[in-house]
């Protein structure tokens, strides 16, 4: 029997989790919107980012939140190089090739992580790890509250970047019309890699916000990426606002599902939404490209 008093905390918990889901989905939707590929290595790269944050903390004592200015450029560089020298080259411009390359990459990265770092679960204990914000109706863990605010802020920055900068305009132009972008002098290969890099940089940010309350292990990525795919489909492939709104909806659905149906059945709501969107609104809630 669920009491009304715990529904509000459950919704707030869903929103905080959903914001981080949205951040993971944001990278996925950007990559889809511009490159028109589904990045199957997204989960594996999130895992790499989580290990990055973990090692920065464990070896250099850098707090996960202070690691943001390191992880975002580092993951951007990794994404840029992967697209420029691995995915782009091995894909030969064919979508099916690119899909297989990203799938292969995910397998290689996960197994490499398993080899290098073993299947050991890595967690960190921070001074604020068990601190909470008392909202009266609910206690929200500080790491979750920071993740929520951080995810919204990063989404806003990314949106502004796309909307108001020359880089953003060029990326949007490329997303709409590759040939046209090429004709006006845009370096297509470079910009593809930049877009992929930004998508992966989102994972760097997500990892910094996630690690204080979660853990790093070689298979952690797959748990997030399935949800992220659902969010991208729900929000509309390539839509930023869609990723954010979709993330929040999925977070709350998952949380309330868990509350009413139990954690084992709780995710059913998420996948019902997935199927319903595919059936009745295949373009998603905000179905337009970046």
């Amino acid at each position, binding site marked *: 029997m669920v009491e009304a008093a715990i529904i509000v905390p459950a919704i707030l918990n869903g929103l905080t989790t959903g914001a981080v889901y949205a951040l993971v989905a944001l990278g996925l939707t950007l990559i889809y919107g511009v490159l028109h590929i589904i990045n199957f290595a997204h989960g594996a790269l999130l895992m790499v980012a989580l290990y990055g944050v973990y090692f920065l903390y464990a070896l250099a004592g850098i707090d996960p939140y202070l690691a943001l200015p390191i992880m975002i450029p580092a993951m951007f560089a990794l994404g840029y190089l992967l697209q420029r020298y691995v995915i782009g080259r091995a894909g030969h411009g064919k979508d099916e090739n690119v899909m297989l390359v990203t799938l292969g990459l995910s397998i290689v990265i996960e197994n490499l992580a398993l080899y290098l770092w073993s*299947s050991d679960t890595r967690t960190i*204990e921070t001074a604020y790890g*068990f601190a*909470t914000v008392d909202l009266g109706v609910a206690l929200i863990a500080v790491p979750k509250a920071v993740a929520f605010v951080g995810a919204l802020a990063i989404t806003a920055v990314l949106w502004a970047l796309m909307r108001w900068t020359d880089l953003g305009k060029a990326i949007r132009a490329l997303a709409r019309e590759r040939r046209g972008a090429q004709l006006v002098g845009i370096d297509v290969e470079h910009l593809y890699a930049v877009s992929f890099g930004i998508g992966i940089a989102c994972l760097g940010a997500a990892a910094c916000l996630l690690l204080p309350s979660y853990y790093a*292990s070689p298979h952690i990525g797959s748990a997030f990426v399935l949800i992220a795919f659902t969010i991208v489909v729900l929000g509309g492939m390539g839509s930023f606002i869609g990723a954010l709104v979709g993330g929040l909806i999925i977070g709350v659905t998952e949380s309330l599902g868990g509350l009413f149906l139990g954690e084992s059945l709780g995710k059913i709501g998420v996948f019902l939404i997935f199927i319903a969107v595919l059936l009745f609104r295949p373009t998603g809630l905000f179905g337009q490209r970046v």
Partner: protein
Amino acid sequence: MSQGNRGYSLSRRRFLRGTAVGGLAVASGAIAMPHVARAAAPVRVGIIHPVTGAVSYSGAQGRAGAMMAVDEINAAGGIKSLGGAMIDALLADAQSKADVGAAQIEKYNDAGVSAVVGGYASFICLATTQAAAKHGIPYVVDVGTDDRIVKAGLKNTFRFSPGYGVFVDTAIKALDQINTAAGRPAKTAVIVHEDSAFGTGTAKLLQKQLGSIAINVLEVMKHPTPNLDFNNIVLRIKAANPDLVIPANYYNEYVLLARTMLQQRVRPKAIYSVLGGAASQYKFVKDFPQAAAYIMDCNHWYNPHKEAALALRKRTEAKGLYFTYEVFLNYEAVMLLADALERAASTDRAKIIDALASSEWAGHFMPYGPTRFVGGQNTGARAVNLQVQDNDIRVILPPEFANAKPIFPMPA
């Protein structure tokens, strides 16, 4: 002359042929043949664990424990009754999936293994023991606490450690003893369990038996593995406000649950787990001492008064690993098999099964009674009660193995 020439020419050809064969032998590694031919043929033993997937940490720990035993046996001269035959360990990954585990057993059969050790998770063991039974391969279950594993009537399956029936019985008796000694402050409980064979089975048994010691189960909550968020479960625990929280799940989920309870300021009189995935893990105690403090657990453990156990702990830690129950149970499972191989003096599967069935092995360091297998289960196997005290894991019951006294209810 011609004869001599022919003779010379023949001997040169022979020399060349001989050199070529020798070269090939070196290249293919067959140069070791004369040595192998003198030594006894190795005994092929399958070592299977889920070293990738959801329960990979436990699987990897289990594999490490099994391999420490194999290395030790081989270093000590192998199986003496087989002329010093080395144990050739064939490692397999069940990928945390039952079907993959069963498929690996088929490969083991093709590879001609004499026996298999491992499985770790109950849902994997249920599949692998049955697959092994089809081919009559002796199977020593390392952990797999689901009692259906040894109740399926499989002649090939042996479990040295206790099943969850024993755990639940021991845990219930110990809880009643601890609660009574403290003036019976615990009257209600919530059970949180993972939803596969191990968690569900344990929860069912607990629910049935808690009533017999006057503890009312307010709610039973299940969750999948992996489960990334325990806020909902903790909110429901908070609303139910039980005296005891009883988790039955694997490591990551146990840690997240305990951390979330601390965050949400849910402090029952005790967290009392049965086969708690993290409660009896040094890693948890080291990483989150605040969340782990005073947690009580009924689990597999070694006899803390036995030198051999302490020595193995040292060797394990020297490898940079935590000394977890997966390590020592797998070590002991391989040692049990080695004893059976010695007595069977054969690599024949049926003979090894007979040797295991009649085992009275006493060379272990577990807090067990005499080894005796009935229907594949070691009836001497026992569970012990542990508590996290002073950043260490202490045995609190039974008294003959204890090295600390229970602290209950846990301090605020």
